[in-house]
């Protein structure tokens, strides 16, 4: 019998108007990797925030027992001192500081009240070795990719003598290689006796790594599956998560009718004056009307930059080459011109540059197309409510009302609001940048279904994605990018995981 390192008993947490958790029980044994899964808005992040003291003692009901003692955390540092470290859905590093400064931020190596920088660097190197990361600790964090940043977050947690490590969707923003790396590291940490809770929507990872998996739905514990009993299987998980079975998460499309070229790029290059280098090099590609074009590639391969350069040159690159839209050569100088022409771009970083987090669902959905619901600049607010409500329902955004502040929605529901905002523009070409990042299987299925419906209505979609399964499952054609160039084009039939990765790592 092994002991429980953590027991969360009868936890309930309410926000004004939303019961996020009700009587949740969650038990974790020492030294195991325990996955926490559930649909968007099920309450996973909230449960972990209760555990780590983000929501202090007294703002929730129930008990947290850690190492046999009832804990009453008033702030995050309380839980850190007890040996609980949490790595949030959104990374919390300082991009302009160096790796070693980040690792010891808030936990500085001091001698007599003065920071000992040399010692800091020495210790930072040790920590980096523990997470198998080979970078110079003096590099700035902003110059590192997301995968490496994630490892730095873990190194930071390790520097604080962590006993229980919590990762909230750690691989959501990582490519396959980096993800694998991270999972391997979690395995290593387990061997050193560190207990780990991981929230993830990627079932494959859960299956490969979890000793146990607890499933939440609508703020309640549904069950805890045990790997030792052979219960951690895709169909069992999905059934418990969604409450029904989904046969094929990539729904098939009937009657494809692919039309002429809607967008063409010829020898397209983009020079970023801030980085003073070319982020896009000599790209030629096209999108046909009524097809889904997948763009695959590793992080930093220039996919987002390509989208931005098309979408009204939003970042002010110096562009070269030819963009042909609907048969006409054209130059978009501002996103508004691209939108006007019929292009919509759903950003990959919905919090950073996608949504107005402080505003409500209604304002976010209408933001890009206020013109259509206003007369002489005055908004018809009834019409606005009607439309926003329509998208909220058709995309099944889980929220008590349209007046809910978007910053308080769960990640997946935020993504749906983002999508709704751009569907309202009624685009001819929809560019989706990582459309299902951080989204649960049920909602993924819904989004794929929406995509298919849009296509059958004659829209074209460019889907940038790091998730190979989704690229393979949804695309009609696939371009693979690396180092700002297109390395190859594959038809849906010939594309495989292997030949995509081969092109991407060329």
């Amino acid at each position, binding site marked *: 019998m092994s002991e429980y390192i953590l027991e969360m008993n009868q936890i309930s947490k309410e926000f*004004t108007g939303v019961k996020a958790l009700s009587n949740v029980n969650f038990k974790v044994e020492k030294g195991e990797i325990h996955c926490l899964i559930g649909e968007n808005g099920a309450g996973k992040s909230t449960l972990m925030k209760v555990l780590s003291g983000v929501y202090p003692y007294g703002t929730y009901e129930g008990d947290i027992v850690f190492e046999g003692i009832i804990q009453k955390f008033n702030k995050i540092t309380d839980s850190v001192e007890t040996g609980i470290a949490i790595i949030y859905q959104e990374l919390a590093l300082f991009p302009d500081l160096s790796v070693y400064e980040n690792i010891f931020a808030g936990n500085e190596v001091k001698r007599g009240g003065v920071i000992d920088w040399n010692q800091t660097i020495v210790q930072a190197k040790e920590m980096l070795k523990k997470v198998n990361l080979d970078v110079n600790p003096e590099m700035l964090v902003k110059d590192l990719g997301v995968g490496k940043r994630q490892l730095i977050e873990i190194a930071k947690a390790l520097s604080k003598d962590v006993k229980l490590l919590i990762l909230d969707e750690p691989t959501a923003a990582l490519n396959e290689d980096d993800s694998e790396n991270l999972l391997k590291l979690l395995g290593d940490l387990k061997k050193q006796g560190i207990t780990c809770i991981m929230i993830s929507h990627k079932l494959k990872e859960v299956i490969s790594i979890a000793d146990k998996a607890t499933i939440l739905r609508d703020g309640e514990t549904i069950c805890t599956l045990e790997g030792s009993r052979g219960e951690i299987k895709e169909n069992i998980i999905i059934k418990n998560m969604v409450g029904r079975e989904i046969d094929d998460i990539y729904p098939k499309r009937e009657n494809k009718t692919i039309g002429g070229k809607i967008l063409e790029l010829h020898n397209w290059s983009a020079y970023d004056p801030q980085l003073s280098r070319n982020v896009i090099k000599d790209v030629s590609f096209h999108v046909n009307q009524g097809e889904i074009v997948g763009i695959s590639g590793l992080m930093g391969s220039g996919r987002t930059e390509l989208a931005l350069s098309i*979408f*009204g040159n*939003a970042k002010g690159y110096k562009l070269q080459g030819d963009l042909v839209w609907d048969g006409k050569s054209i130059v978009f100088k*501002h*996103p*508004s011109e*691209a*939108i*006007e022409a019929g292009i919509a*771009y759903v*950003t990959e970083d919905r919090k*950073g*540059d*996608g*949504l*107005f*987090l*402080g*505003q409500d669902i209604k*304002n976010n959905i*209408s*933001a*890009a197309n*206020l*013109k259509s619901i*206003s007369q002489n*600049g*005055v*908004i018809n*607010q*009834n019409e606005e*409510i*009607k439309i926003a*409500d329509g998208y909220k329902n058709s995309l099944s955004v889980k929220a008590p*009302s*349209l*007046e809910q502040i978007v910053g308080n929605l769960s990640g997946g529901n935020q993504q749906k609001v983002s999508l709704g*905002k751009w569907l309202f523009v009624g685009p001819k070409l929809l560019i989706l940048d990582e459309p299902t990042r951080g989204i649960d299987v049920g909602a993924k299925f819904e989004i794929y279904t929406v995509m298919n419906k849009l296509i059958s209505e004659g829209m074209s979609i460019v889907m940038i994605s790091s998730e190979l399964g989704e690229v393979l499952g949804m695309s009609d054609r696939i371009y693979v990018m690396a180092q700002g160039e297109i390395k190859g084009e594959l038809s849906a039939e010939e594309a495989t995981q292997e030949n995509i990765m081969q092109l991407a790592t060329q």
Partner: protein
Amino acid sequence: MNTLKEAKTLIQENIRDYGMYIALFVIILTFTIMTDGLFMSSRNISNLIDSAGYIAVLAVAMTLVIVIRHIDLSVGYAAGFMGAIAAILMTQAGMPVYITIPIILILGIVIGLFSGFLVASIGIPAFVATLAAMLIFRGALLQVTEKTGTIIIQNDTFNAIGNGYIPSLLQFNGLHLLTLIVGLVGIGFYIYSEISNRRNKMKYQFDVVSTGIFVLKLVFISAIIAYITWILAGYNGFSWTIIIMLLVVVIYHFISTKTVLGRHIYAVGSNPEAAHLTGINVKKITYIVFGSMGMMSALSGILFTARLQSATTTAGTLFELDAIAAAYVGGVSAAGGVGKVTGAVIGAIVMASLTNGMNLLGVGISYQYMIRGGVLALAVIFDVLTRMKR
């Protein structure tokens, strides 16, 4: 019983908004008691609102500047400078009032647009750009008033803007008839808009407060408007300053809540990158907001100069800080995207009430500054705390 409970949760949820009104109420009550009712006398209230007017119009525009995460420090001396220009145009160039005022307002817009240019197109932080502008206007004001010193204005029409009252039409039991009519129309309009608003929300199954609370709120607000109207009608009625101030507030409130422009301003404040990718022209919005700030500086200059019936070398001193303070007391947030123009007006009235009340009580000027500083700090602390709780 239920109504009481609902009222309690309502206050808890909107504590930030209501907190300001409660604070204002406490301030008024305190001063009224301490001055044996002198504070609430017709004459004093009339005087108080007039002295809030030239700050309120600044605060309203300043709120939008802060909403888009900028600041404008130049507005005080800009107001003083433009007031002086108005005085010079009328006294030395002999220009008629109805030409002078539009010219000054346009000059204000141009000045504001120039700040907008420095901030949006050149990329200078607003703090620095407008600090430079503040110094320049300070110098310019001294320059134009150097030879003459204080410029006395003898134009009655112009001076009426700061001192005059709307015509009464008829005296009615010693009360000012037109003022009563305006007040009644105001109440009618308020009730109408609230009811139609509620109806709309119900049509879309939005949450609305219960009928009890709704009626209570209508009666309460109407009673306040009626009371203020009554008080003012007992003296000289509504002053032109009040009318101008109300107009400005109504227009800004309308723009910020009902129009595309307003939405875009708050979008830019809430997340500039997202706004850009939403197709909003962030630069244009910045220009417009600074342009409006410039125009309100001009209006403030006109109101103040008219009130003093002269342009002085020190006109406009510290106006910018009063306006910023009023905006913060009114609930604007430096993090951007949050803040109501109606809040800014209440903020301006809170600050003016403090000054006025303390003057009546004969509190020394040194203490006055400290108390006003304390109130500003308290308001912002309250703001931060209530936001954190949510």
